[in-house]
Each structure stands twice: as C-alpha cells, then as structure tokens.
C-alpha cells in the first residue's frame, strides 16, 4: 500500500484515492460517450447493483484527531468560564457589548448563547462575514479587517486583497459583472424599474414572471413551475401548503434549515432517517404505514419524503433511484430540494435527476434555487400542472410577499438562453 505524506503529516491511503478517482473518470466517460436515456429504475437499478454503480467516499476521522478536537473544545470552554468569572468580578474589562440587566425584565439570552458568542465564536470571528468589494466571480477583492483586541472589535484597514474564490457558490461562473446576462438585466431594469411593491395575486404578476415560470418548466422537463424571490422562502412557505396535520414527513437527518422550518410550520409529524441510508428509510416507511400515527394510530393521510440533491455541508449525493423505487413501492411523495445540484449535476445540467438518467416526472415536487449555479437569486418549484395551480392559489409567497425584482428575473431568462440545451455541459 503506497502511502503519501502531505505537508501537515497526515498519511493518505493511495489505493483508496486512486479508486475514488477512477470511479469519477468512469462516470464522466459514461456520461459523455452515450446520450442519456431515461431508464426505468425498477429494472435498471435493482438494489443489489447500486452498491457497485454508486460510489462515494468520506475520509474517516483518525482517532487521535477526534481526541485532540474534543480536548481542545473542553479546554476552550474551561478557559471561557474562568474569563467569565474574571469579568464578573471586575478584574478583566468587558470589551464587547453585553445585555444590560434592567430591573424586573427577564434576561433575553440564556447563558449559553452569550457565553458561546463571547468566548468561542469571538476567537474565530474574523473568518466569517468577510466583506467583498467586487463581484463574487473567480477572483474576489476581500476587504481586509484587523483587530487590536483579539477580535472583540474588527476594524477595516482600508486595503483590499485580491484572492482566488473557492468560497462562493458560483458553480457555473455566471456571477460576472459583464456579459450578455448583465446587459439583459440592465436593459430590463431601465425598462421595468427595480421595485414592484406587490404580491403575485395582488397586481404583482408581470409578464416576465410568466415567461420565467414557463422557461423553468421547460428546463426541468416538467409540466409547470412557479418561481419565488427567495430560495429559503421557497421551502418554508410552500411545504405548509403541501402537507398538513395528519401527514408524515420523512426527512433526511442532515436536511437544510429551510426544509426543517417548512416541515415544522406545516404542522405534520416529522421523522428523520439516517443520512442517505436507504435501508433505514425503507424501515421507517414500513413502520409508519403499518403503525399509523404514534398516538392515535390513525392511518397517515400522506407521506412526504424530503431529500436534497446534493448536501452542501457534506458533499454527498442522494441515492435518488433508490428513493424513487421506495416511493413507488410505498405510495409516498418525494420532495427534492436541488438548491446545489441544479445546473451543476448531470450531463445537461438539469440536476440530480439528469445525473442518474431518471424521469423528472417521477419526482412529485422538484424544488431548487437560482442563487448558486445561475448566479442570480430566487427559487422555484416544478411539478404537475395540478400542483402548480394549487401553489399559485395557496402558497404563502403568492399572497403575502412581493414578487421577484424584474431585473433579476430577466437574468434567469438570459441564463437559460445561454445554457446549452443540446450539447453536453
């Protein structure tokens, strides 16, 4: 076994690395050499074959690293408590802001969140919220900040630093300040203005939105689509219209916060299954249908499986063929959040469904955002005409919140026109 030593001193197992790399190449070659055919997943991906075809590696955490991390955390907390005591007694001056104790009022913050902020988060505060003074393209201008008092207060030095951007979600490079998209947006802003000030059902529905809805539907390969100005809101405001009390939501344990919020707001029962673990999902589905509601034992009205295409914090890809096979077997519905995978996965950039060569009409609710690959802002939901009509009427976003800013909507349109329909991405 060949071992490679990196600069820091960790040892990589070269055979593992080579295997993962060759798998990637094999899949890429497959994708480019033959045109994607829509497959019937019950025959093409029976459970046994999947293990060979679908391959992901996650580096195991070495034991000594785990131990040192835990010791480090405990040490930081311990020192934090000592410093809090010193501040309380008056030996150390408090440099940040703390909640003033007003007589009679219950303190706003429980101890831990303030403690965490002052002693743990503050130490690494300069890594987050770094401001830019340029477009979030391939290179960015970071505005430099320094601190003379250990990150209690951050000040701008007045200098900027040009760096390569590996931080923004600019997968396809559309975040640029020149080019046909920007020209289209500029033209549209001059024609339509920047503000709409009305919601979709109350005179805020422009011809641009209609165009964008139709284009989105065409791009995804579904019957109809509806778009919203915020990706987060597309989840939190639409899930409550799809499931209510009396239904069950089976959500992956590492789902995004917006999906969790939408699930909670809907009032349905929520159960989680182990991340990307299809056996666990099947077990939970079977148990749920057989047992019914845990307290009343009534049959569930609907079961909605909520998964993401690509999980942004783990980098894992959902095993979609298996999810769809389970959905068909147990008559559940699938809600697929393609925030990161739309535009980025698949030989034609149509997302995770395209990546696996499946039929987009099999996924009941296809949701995604325009913020990442399209370099714009907003979200969409695609599905059958019945679903979209229902959302047009009952989505919180259609009634209570204002529509997309025109200029942004046009940029999506221009993006779509640029994305090649007929040749590989």
């Amino acid at each position, binding site marked *: 076994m060949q071992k490679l030593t990196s600069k820091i001193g960790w040892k990589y197992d070269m055979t593992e690395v080579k295997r993962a790399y060759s798998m990637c190449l094999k899949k890429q070659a497959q994708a480019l050499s033959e045109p994607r055919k829509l497959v019937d997943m019950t025959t093409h991906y029976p459970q046994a074959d999947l293990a060979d075809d679908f391959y992901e590696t996650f580096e195991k955490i070495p034991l000594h690293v785990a131990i040192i991390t835990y010791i480090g955390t405990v040490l930081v907390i311990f020192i934090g408590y000592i410093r809090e005591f010193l501040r309380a007694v008056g030996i150390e001056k408090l440099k940040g*802001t*703390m*909640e*003033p104790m007003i007589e*009679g009022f219950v303190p*706003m913050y429980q101890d831990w*969140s303030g403690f965490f*902020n002052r002693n743990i988060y503050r130490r690494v505060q300069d890594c*987050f919220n770094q401001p*830019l*003074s340029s*477009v979030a393209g391939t290179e960015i201008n970071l505005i430099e900040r320094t601190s003379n008092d250990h990150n209690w207060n951050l000040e701008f030095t007045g200098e900027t630093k040009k760096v390569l951007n590996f*931080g923004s*979600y600019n997968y396809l490079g559309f*975040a*640029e*300040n020149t080019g046909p*998209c*920007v020209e289209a*947006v500029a033209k549209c802003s*001059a024609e339509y*203005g*920047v*503000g*709409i000030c*009305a919601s979709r*059902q*109350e*005179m*805020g529905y422009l*011809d641009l939105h209609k165009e964008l809805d139709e284009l989105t539907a065409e791009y995804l390969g579904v019957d109809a689509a509806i778009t919203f*100005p*915020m*990706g*987060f*809101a597309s989840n*939190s405001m639409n899930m*409550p219209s799809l499931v209510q009390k009396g239904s069950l939501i089976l959500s992956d344990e590492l789902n995004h*916060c*917006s999906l969790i919020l939408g699930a*909670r707001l809907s009032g349905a029962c929520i159960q989680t299954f182990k991340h990307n673990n299809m056996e666990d999902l099947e077990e939970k589905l079977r148990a749920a*249908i*057989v047992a019914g509601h845990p307290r009343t034992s009534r049959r569930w009205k609907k*079961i909605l499986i909520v998964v993401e295409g690509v999980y942004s914090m783990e980098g894992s890809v959902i095993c979609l063929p298996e999810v769809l096979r389970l959905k068909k077997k*147990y*008559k*559940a519905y699938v809600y697929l959040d393609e925030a990161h995978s739309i535009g980025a996965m698949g030989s034609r950039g149509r997302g995770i469904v395209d990546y696996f060569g499946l039929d987009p009409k099999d996924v009941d*609710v296809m949701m995604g955002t325009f*913020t990442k690959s399209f*370099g*714009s802002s907003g979200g969409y939901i695609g599905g059958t005409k*019945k679903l979209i*009509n229902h959302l047009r*009427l009952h989505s919180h*976003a259609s*009634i*209570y919140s204002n529509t997309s*800013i025109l200029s*942004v909507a046009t*940029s999506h349109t221009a993006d779509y026109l640029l994305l090649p329909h007929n040749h590989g991405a």
Partner: protein
Amino acid sequence: MAVIPATWDLYELLQAVVQAPTYHIVFEILLILWIIKLIFFSKSYALEKTVLTTKEKDELIEEWQPEPLVPDIPDTHPVLQALERNIITGRPDKYLNVNGRSCLNMATMNFLGMAGDQTIETEAIKCLRKYGVGSCGPRGFYGTMDVHLVLEDNLAKFMNCEEAILYSYGFATIASAIPAYSKRGDIIFCDEGVCFSIQKGLVASRSFIKFFKHNDMEHLERLLIEQQKEDKKNPKKAKVTRRFLVAEGLYIKHGDICPLPKLVELKWKYKVRIFLEESFSFGVLGKCGRGVTEHFDIPVDEIDLIAASLENSVGSTGGFCCGKKYVIDHQRLSGLGYCFSASLPPMLASAATQALTIMEANSAVLFTSLRENAEKIHDGLLQVEGMKLMGVPISPLKHLQLGEPGGDRDMDTRTLQKIVDEVQTLGVAMTLARYLEKEEHCLPQPSIRIAVSCKLTDTEIKNVIECTKKACQTVLNENSS
C-alpha cells in the same frame, strides 16, 4: 356442618376441630393454601403486545391509500382566472399597464413613488456593473458586500438605532426575528389583527401565544394582569420565562395604527419587551418617515426591536431589523433567514440606499403630500354609496368593504371582484385583498385594498373617486335587480 351457635366458647371450638373427620381438615387446609397462592403468587395476565407477521404488514401496506398530494383545482377557479387576466407589462409606476390597458395604479404599495424613480434605477445599474446580479452566498461565507454594510449603516443612522441587520426577503424578516429570541416556554402577547408573516414567526417560535383583540388595550391589560397573577404563584418559573409583545405599526389587514404610547406604558408596567413590525409604517408615518415611533414622538430606544420590509415604500426587496447592538447582534447567529439564506442581491441593496437618500432629502415634500393624498381619498371614498371604508384618514392603505355583506364570503368576494374589474375598465387598477382563508388567525371581511401614492395629483384623486362611485353603483344595482 351445623351453624356455630354464638354461645360456644373457645374450648368447645377446639374440641370440634379435633373431632372433625381427617378428610375435612385436609380439604380445609388445601383450600386455605390455594387462596393464599391466588392472592399473593399468581401472575398478572397483561395483554400481550401483538406482533404482526411480515405477511400482515405487507397486506396493510398494500391496502393503504394516501390522499392525493394536492386537491383538484379547476382551471376556471376565479382567483386563477383573475391572475391570468391581470398580467402587468412594462414599468409598474404611477400607471400600470394591465392587460394592454394603462390604468392608474391604486393597487401596489408604491407609497413614495420609488418604484418608478430614475435615479434609483441608475444607481442599481451602476451597482449591477460592479457586482453582478446575485451575491452567490450567505452572509457568513463571502456573500457580504460593502453595499450591504453601507445599507445597514444608513438604516441604523436613519432610524437613530445602534445597529441594523439586513434580510434578503421582507416576509422572512419578522418570521426569522421572533423565533430567534422567543423559544418554547416563553410568552408572546400579540394583536389579533397582525399580518401573516408575524403569525408564521409565532408558530415557528413554539412559545405560548396570547392574542388580544385588535387595538383593545383593556383586553391586553387584563391578559397581562392574569399573567402577573400566574407569575406570583410560580416565581421560579417566572424568572426564566421571557415575555414579549408583538404589534404592527400600521396594520395591513385593517389600515389603522397601533396605540404605541399605551403599549410603551404597559411595557414598563408589566415588564414585557416590545417587537414592532413596521413594514407599512416605515417610510409612511412620521415627519421624516421613520415610522410609528416618530409619529407618536416616542424615543426609539423604548422599543426593543423594530422590523420592517424594504419592499413597500422603499421599493426594493428585502427587510431589516434595527435596535440596540446587543439585541441585533444575536440575530447574526440565530436569525434563520439571515444565516442560512443567500444575501440580498447587491443592486437591490444599492437601490434601497438610494431610496433612503431620496427619503432624507425630500422628506418635507414626500410625507406631507402622502398624508394629504391619503386624507383626500379617505374623504372621497366615504361618500361612495353602498360601501364601508376601513382605515384611519392618514393611512395610505384603505379597505373598502361591502356596506351590507351578504353573509356568504364567496358571494361577497365575487361582487367585489366585479367592482374591481369594472373599475379597471374605467382606467383605475385596484386589487382585492387576498388571504389564505383557512390559515389566517383572524380573517377580516372581504375587501378591496386601496394603496395611495404621494405622486397622485388632485385631478387623479377626483378621477379615482368618480370611477369607484360609478363602478360600485353599476355592480350593486346589478346585484340588487
């Protein structure tokens, strides 16, 4: 066995036992032992848990039929048809181009006319050429641009607050702010007539919600006194239960203003923190548009958190919260819509900055003319026969309800929709106020919502009132005949 007479004594009893036949004694002893066993040593026969076989489970799974994901909506649904009929083309400015016809815009919340302002567009396009369209990341990971920081600074200075935080969507602002502070076990006193985004924020917070009747301060005081009594009974719990009061500056569902001085008085008396939602009062009320605090001349420090949307008077997208530093800083890590969502597109942030500059420069003209126009329209609409006008005179949001509602909500909605369509043929664009009927906490009567802009001239106002009168007359006469 003979009945033992009561007069027998112990000696005679013992003699009888000894003289009894052996089988009898054995039988009695066995019986006693059996009774002892039954009482003390028998197993309790609980119900056995039923374990289903795989076959039975498969049958259950086979039999289960879910409901359809969404109910059937016919294409002829009135709202869907209204949506398709009212597609806007071109700039939504003072005049809207609805379905090919140019109508005076009394529907969109363009109170200060910012949606059609050329300087805002120029700034936005300048920013577009520097920053592109989207910010491609959340605020924490390279999605913060200097335009966002500038806007936050400007908003904080404008509102005389220590700090402001920017959200990328108006609805998400208050819906993320409330759950960041109020958790399970806390208590929130909320007005019944609040907008839907606040209602969602309350649900997301999982706290105890106590609604008080719309603008009814006595009812609120009664609830607060009740809570005080509860606290006295359980002082330990009261020490860790936070109490909040949520109200809107200008209620969109009713068109009236909250009684802020009384709310502040109650705040200090009963020690509750006030969260004020100023989506429709920011840029509308007050001498310089600073909202309901300026309107009532109350120092903004008395309010713990002010949340507002930039989508109405400011004519951009997004929202912000402002207040003291220790309050706002907390949202930078706990505000869901802030941490886990992409930041506001930079060109919209610079559009908002420019709108703020315009508001500060022209405050003398903009707000007085908005108030005057609102009052004129109010006086005019009061004269429309057969309709009831809701809202205070200076509010630019008014609700026109049927004077004699039929009792059937659908019927009334259809009548109002006819009025709106009729008024559109006469050249004025209005809209019905739309609600999610099954999910609203306190559903108001169906109404036409009228939004007044400061750019309206006297002739246009007269025109609006004439057209409304004519349309109402036509439709109501039709209905009664």
